[in-house]
């Protein structure tokens, strides 16, 4: 999708840069820049913005970030392999709509939730089959299913809302751990984060995802079943998005077909801000989580100082662009500087 097609991975340094290995020691772990930035921002905001560091506010902030971080987990893996799934937010919407419809039909939530998760898996499998079996570009496929799944959500529930979910479930969805203000749901989220992080960074499968992202042909020749791996990643994205749909419905206490519209862009923004290359092959989970938190914190802090909601969009967009332009510029500067030295020897 870019003009320049030289494969770069300025953030992770996972590609060996065409044989110029010596600069390795200087590369920081993926995502460390954005994490540092996040920590700095949190410190500054806590000092400068009144009410930012309160437990109440932290709780709200985390609640806002939960679904984005959740969906970012499988989507990061997909982006690392060089594919993309833009249909995740529509899967959230369709799951929410189906959940509402089934609840309206009188089924218990204990039955509904597994059904919805399976549905999410099926939706993901459709994406996966179209991409891996028919060899269609995932960008185009998931723009198609973005419209298709959202359309189905409206077919299922129309413009109605189902809102009479049991109190116990909806209060659980927003309740905090003791008096800390940290939402209860952060715990299962962290478990999923841990599983994904280990899978991505410490298993052969995780390494194979980077291999695919850097060169699909090379990955295939080295014995990786590229199609099967990608298929299951899309299924995972479907299931996790459905889980996100269930949580979204409970958190807002309302099942609607238009739930989470446009969320895919926020998730993708968090992933890219976190230093994952849109071409695949580089980036890590730490950066993505930091990216998601940074986006949410900046918006939250600006809201607290009464910056109009409109400006937040400008900040989000600018952050995203700066995040991708900055490494390019530094890489370009680094490339220019050592001209005199015999680097190519």
């Amino acid at each position, binding site marked *: *999708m*870019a003009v320049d097609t030289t494969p770069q991975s300025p953030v992770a340094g996972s590609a060996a840069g065409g044989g110029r290995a010596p600069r390795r020691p200087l590369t920081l772990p993926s995502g460390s820049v954005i994490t540092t930035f996040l920590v700095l921002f949190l410190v500054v905001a806590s000092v400068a913005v009144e009410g930012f560091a309160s437990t109440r506010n932290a709780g709200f902030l985390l609640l806002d970030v939960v679904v984005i971080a959740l969906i970012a987990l499988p989507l990061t893996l997909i982006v690392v392999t060089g594919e993309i799934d833009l249909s995740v937010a529509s899967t959230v919407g369709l799951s929410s709509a189906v959940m509402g419809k089934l609840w309206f039909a009188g089924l218990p939530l204990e039955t509904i939730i597994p059904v919805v998760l399976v549905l999410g898996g099926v939706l993901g499998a459709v994406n996966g089959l179209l991409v891996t079996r028919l060899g269609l*570009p995932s960008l185009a496929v998931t*723009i198609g299913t973005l419209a298709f799944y959202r*359309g189905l959500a409206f077919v299922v529930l129309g413009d109605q809302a189902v809102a009479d979910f049991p109190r116990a479930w909806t209060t659980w969805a927003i309740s905090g751990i003791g008096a800390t203000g940290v939402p209860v749901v952060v715990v299962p989220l962290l478990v999923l984060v841990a599983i994904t992080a280990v899978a991505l960074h410490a298993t052969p499968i995780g390494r194979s995802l980077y291999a695919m992202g850097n060169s*699909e042909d090379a990955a295939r020749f080295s014995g990786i079943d590229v199609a099967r791996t990608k298929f299951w990643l899309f299924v995972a994205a479907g299931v996790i998005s459905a889980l996100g749909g269930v949580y979204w419905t409970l958190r807002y206490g309302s099942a609607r077909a238009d739930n989470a519209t446009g969320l895919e862009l926020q998730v*993708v923004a968090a992933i890219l801000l976190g230093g994952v290359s849109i*071409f695949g092959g580089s980036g890590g989970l730490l950066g993505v989580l930091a990216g998601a938190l940074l986006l949410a914190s900046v918006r939250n802090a600006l809201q607290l100082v009464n910056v109009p909601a409109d400006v937040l969009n400008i900040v989000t*967009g600018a952050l995203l662009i700066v995040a991708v332009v900055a490494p390019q510029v530094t890489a370009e500067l680094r490339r220019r500087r050592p001209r005199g030295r015999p680097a190519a020897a």
Partner: protein
Amino acid sequence: MSERTGSPVSTAAQGSPPSAPAPHLPDVAPELAAPERSGRRGSALVHRLVVVRELGILAALLLLVVVTVAVNPRFLSGQNVRDLLLSASILTVLAAGQTMVIITRNVDLSVGSVLGLSAYASGTLLVTAPDLPVVVVVLAGMAVGAACGLLNGAIVAVAKVPSLVVTLGTLYAFRGLDSLWASSTGRLQINAADLPASFKALGGARVLGVPVLFLIAVAVVLVMGYYLRTYRSGRELYGIGSAPDAARLSGIPVGRRVLTAFVVNGALAGLAGVLYAARFQTLDTTAGTGQELFVVAAAVVGGVAIFGGSGSVYGAALGALLLTTIGTALPQLGLDPFWRDAAVGALIIAAIALDRTLTLRLAARLRGRNVRGS
């Protein structure tokens, strides 16, 4: 978006055996875009494919219209058709610009926000200076769009950042700018009553019964189609999209061409913004939200390959017309309008699957021909 962006040249050279389904479209796209290489007969074959592809959309469109008319004869009533053409014209103008960008293996997701910004700008301009000639307003809207396109294109071409990411960023930024502008002036909504009659007349104006907005869209498509087909720089856009490295090596100023594509696309999104203002006459800062997906969808349905190098603006225009017709036909067919998005989504997937099949078949035939020929 993936490894296929990495080295199109090598994958293209490798080709794909027809038996084992090859992974992606652009493998064969260079042949589509540079027919000269495959000889005159190969080029005729490619040309026929493009024509068949466009006739296919036209056939789908006609089928849809025939079925709808059979169910509800009033579908083809004058007013209904005029409404349809009016709605289609805005999407068509956007799709024409987007086609130019997609052909270069880029994408512009910010067009919905550019449309909103331009619509608001032209509305504001008219409120403050109601006596301005309509032409000036149109040019002002296009200038706003071109400026946005220049920003997108400059970041993409100079900083060499993937356009998907850049325009995702500016999608937010331009929309934010729009809202910021509206809230700082306190004019959150512009109503029909605020706009001068001369401008409002544009929305309903007709020549020989045909809405002027639609004629503008047709003119845009024809000019763009002629340019892409005939001009050297237009052909170079296809070359860039097929194989950026090869294009650069053969001396095509890739950065400048891509920048131009973004500026033209921005200007057309700006024009679409003015058309939007003229058509709907009630403007707030949400105008055009989510349009980017329909625009990309129109281009893809119209046979423009999402990874560049092939497709025509006529196809994209037909795609836009088809998507709009689906939207208006469904209620007439007695179907819930909620089915529209689902139908659009299914259509996109069907279209790319069809393109994939056609491209594979074409590649196989071209290869067979070359083997026999030499």
